[in-house]
C-alpha cells in the first residue's frame, strides 16, 4: 500500500493542528545559581533594594493595567510582569553609565534606570510630565541622562541602534558596556543577524540579550524559530550563555561576569535569558495560545516570591519589614497615578516641539 503523503502544511514538524492539552512549557529554565547573596558580595541592604525594585515594577504595571482597563489612557500596553528579575539583576551588575536599550516591553527597564514612577505613569497617560513628555507613551520610556536609551517599537529595529551605541563607546574609548535587550520574536529579524555579524567583525563592546519569554506575540518559541536561540552565537563565533531569568541572583552574577569580560576584551556576547511573560503580548491579547496550567507552572517560581522567601529564610528582614516595603511601594504607585491624573496634557505648541535638534523646519 502506498504510504500516505504528508499533508503540505507550513508549520514545524510535531505541531498538532488540534493543539494538545498537556502542559508544554514554553521555555526550559537552566538551573539558577546556588550562591548566597554573601557569596555574591551583595549586602543585606542591596538584597532588599533588589526586592523593592522588582516589586515596584510589578505593582506599577498591575496598577497601570487597571487604569488602562478603566479607560484612563489609550495606546498599547505591553507588560513586563514575570520578567522583573532580568532588569533588576542587570542594573545591579552594571555600572551606572553602562548603556541599556530595549524594545517596547520597556516599563520595567525605565523604572530601574531612573524613570520615576510619576514620570512613567504620566507617560502612559500621555501627559506633559511624562519621561518622554507624553510624546512616546508606553513603548518609548527613556532616561537618556541615565544611559537608558529607551524602548523602541519596531521588532528588531533597535538592535542596530544598540550596536551603534557600542560603536560610539569603542570610538570614544570610554570603557562603557552596551546591552541591547530584545524578545525572542526579534531573533527572527534580519537586523539581529546583520548586527551580530558586524559586532563580531568590529569587536564591539556589546551584549545582545534575548529575553526569551516563550512567545513572539501569540506564537510559541518552538513554532517561530528553529533550534536553540543561544546557538545563533556559534555562527558568529560569539561568546554566549543561557541563563535562568526567574532568579535575580543568577542574572546578577552572570551579567556581572559578562560585563567584566566585555569591558576587558571589547568583544560582544549573545545571551539568552529564559523567562516567562505572565500577561498577554498586549492588552488586547486573549491568550488562547497557551494554557492556564502553563502560566501557573511559572507563577510557582515567581522571581519576586522567590526573593521574598530568600529574604525571610536568611533573616535579612522579617515579614513586618517586607510588609512595610510593600506598603511604601503601594503608596508610591498610587501617588504616581494621582500625579499622572493631575498633570496637564502637553500644550498644543508641543506638537511641533522636539522634532529637530537644530533649526526646526516644517513643510506646510
Amino acid at each position: 500500500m502506498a504510504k500516505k503523503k504528508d499533508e503540505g502544511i507550513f508549520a514545524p514538524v510535531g505541531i498538532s493542528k488540534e493543539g494538545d492539552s498537556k502542559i508544554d512549557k514554553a521555555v526550559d529554565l537552566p538551573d539558577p545559581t546556588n550562591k548566597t547573596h554573601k557569596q555574591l558580595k551583595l549586602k543585606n541592604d542591596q538584597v532588599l533594594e533588589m526586592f523593592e525594585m522588582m516589586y515596584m515594577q510589578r505593582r506599577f504595571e498591575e496598577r497601570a493595567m487597571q487604569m488602562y482597563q478603566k479607560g484612563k489612557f489609550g495606546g498599547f500596553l505591553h507588560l513586563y510582569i514575570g520578567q522583573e528579575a532580568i532588569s533588576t539583576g542587570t542594573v545591579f551588575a552594571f555600572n551606572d553609565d553602562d548603556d541599556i536599550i530595549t524594545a517596547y516591553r520597556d516599563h520595567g527597564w525605565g523604572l530601574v534606570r531612573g524613570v520615576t514612577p510619576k514620570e512613567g505613569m504620566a507617560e502612559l497617560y500621555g501627559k506633559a510630565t511624562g519621561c518622554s513628555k507624553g510624546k512616546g507613551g508606553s513603548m518609548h520610556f527613556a532616561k537618556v541622562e541615565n544611559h537608558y536609551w529607551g524602548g523602541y517599537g519596531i521588532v528588531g529595529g533597535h538592535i542596530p541602534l544598540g550596536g551603534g551605541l557600542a560603536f560610539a563607546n569603542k570610538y570614544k574609548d570610554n570603557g562603557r558596556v552596551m546591552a541591547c535587550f530584545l524578545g525572542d520574536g526579534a531573533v527572527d529579524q534580519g537586523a539581529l543577524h546583520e548586527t551580530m555579524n558586524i559586532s563580531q567583525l568590529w569587536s564591539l563592546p556589546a551584549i545582545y540579550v534575548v529575553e526569551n519569554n516563550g512567545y513572539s506575540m501569540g506564537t510559541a518559541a518552538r513554532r517561530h524559530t528553529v533550534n536553540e536561540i543561544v546557538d545563533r552565537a556559534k555562527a558568529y563565533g560569539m561568546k554566549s550563555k543561557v541563563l535562568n531569568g526567574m532568579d535575580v541572583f543568577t542574572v546578577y552574577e552572570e551579567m556581572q561576569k559578562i560585563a567584566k569580560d566585555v569591558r576587558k576584551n571589547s568583544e560582544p556576547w549573545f545571551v539568552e535569558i529564559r523567562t516567562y511573560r505572565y500577561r498577554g503580548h498586549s492588552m488586547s491579547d486573549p491568550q488562547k495560545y497557551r494554557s492556564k496550567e502553563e502560566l501557573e507552572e511559572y507563577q510557582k517560581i515567581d522571581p519576586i516570591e522567590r526573593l521574598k522567601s530568600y529574604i525571610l529564610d536568611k533573616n535579612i528582614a522579617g515579614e513586618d519589614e517586607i510588609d512595610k516595603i510593600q506598603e511604601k511601594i503601594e503608596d508610591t504607585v498610587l501617588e504616581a497615578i494621582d500625579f499622572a491624573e493631575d498633570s496637564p496634557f502637553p500644550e498644543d505648541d508641543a506638537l511641533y516641539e522636539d522634532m529637530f535638534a537644530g533649526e526646526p523646519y516644517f513643510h506646510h
Partner: protein
Amino acid sequence: MAELQFREAIKQAIDEEMESDENVFIMGEEVAEYNGAYKVTEGLLDKYGFRRVIDTPISELGFAGIGVGAAMNGLRPIVEFMTFNFAVLAADQIINHASKARYMLGGQVSTPIVFRGPNASAGQLGATHSVAYDSMYAMFPGLKVIYTSEPEDAKGLLKSAIRDDDPVLFMESEQMYGLKGEVTEEEDFTIPIGKGKIKRDGDDVTVVATGKMYHIAQNAAKELAKDGVECEIIDPRTIKPLDMEMIVESVKKTNRCVVVDESHPFGGLASEVGFLIQREAFDYLDAPVQRVTLPDVNAPFSKPLFDLWLPDAKNVVEAVNTVTYRK
C-alpha cells in the same frame, strides 16, 4: 576658484569636516580599502585610518542602524550607500529610527547623521538600480533631503549637512561624479540647507530642476533660446526644506512653470511644487503648471526603451511649448 570633479568636491567636504571634527567618520561598502566604489573617498583611509574610514559588509540595514545609534551616542557619522536604491534595505533605520527617535523620546536624543550616495538611474542598470528616492524621503517629517547638480553646491551643502544636528540625506549621481565645475576656494565655504539658486535668468518660463535633471533643463533652455524663449532655471538644490519662496517669486514674473523631476509622477517634487504654485501664485498663472517626470513604469534595460523612459531635453522643450502655448 578651482575646477573640480563632482567626486573631488564631495571628498573635499568630507575631508575638511573630518579634519575639523574628530567625531566625524565615514562608513559604507568599499569606502576604505577599495577607495570608494566611485572613488569619492579616495585617499581618506590613508589619511585617517580604519578607525574613521570603515568598510562595512553588504548589510545596509545593519550599518545604517549602527550609524544612527552612534549618532545618538555623540558621533557624527557619514553613512555611504553605494546607491540609494540599496538604502531601501535600510529604510527602517532612516524612516523609523533616524527621523523619529528624538520626537518619540521627547527630545532626549539627537541624530546628527548624513546618509549619502548616488540617487536615481545611471544608464542601463535595470529596474532595481534606477529609482529616484529624493521625494520619497522628503515626505517624512524630520528628514532633510539634498540633491545637487554641480560640484560647488555639493561641497557647500555637504559640509552643512555634516554639521547639521539632525538627519540629512545627501544625494549624488553616478553619472555626475566626473562632471567638472568651478568650486570656490573660500575658506570654510558652506551653503545653507534649504536655499535654492537661480542658475539662469529668463522672463518667459520658470523651470525647476535639480540633480541630473538640472543639466537636461539647461540643454532645453539653450534650444528654446534659439526660438527666443528665455527660461529662468531654478535649482532648489534641497528638496526639503524646499525654497518655495524663490520659485513663487520667479513664477510671479514669468507666469508659467515647468518642473523637471527625476522621480515617478505620483506624489513627487513635481506634484508638490505644482500644488504650492497653485496655492501661492494662482492669480499669476497664464497656463497650468506642467511637469516632466519618469513615466509610471519601471526602468527598462533595453537601450531604446531606457532612452524613452528617462526624461530628456526634448521632453522639457515640449513642456515649455505647452505652457507658452507654442504648439
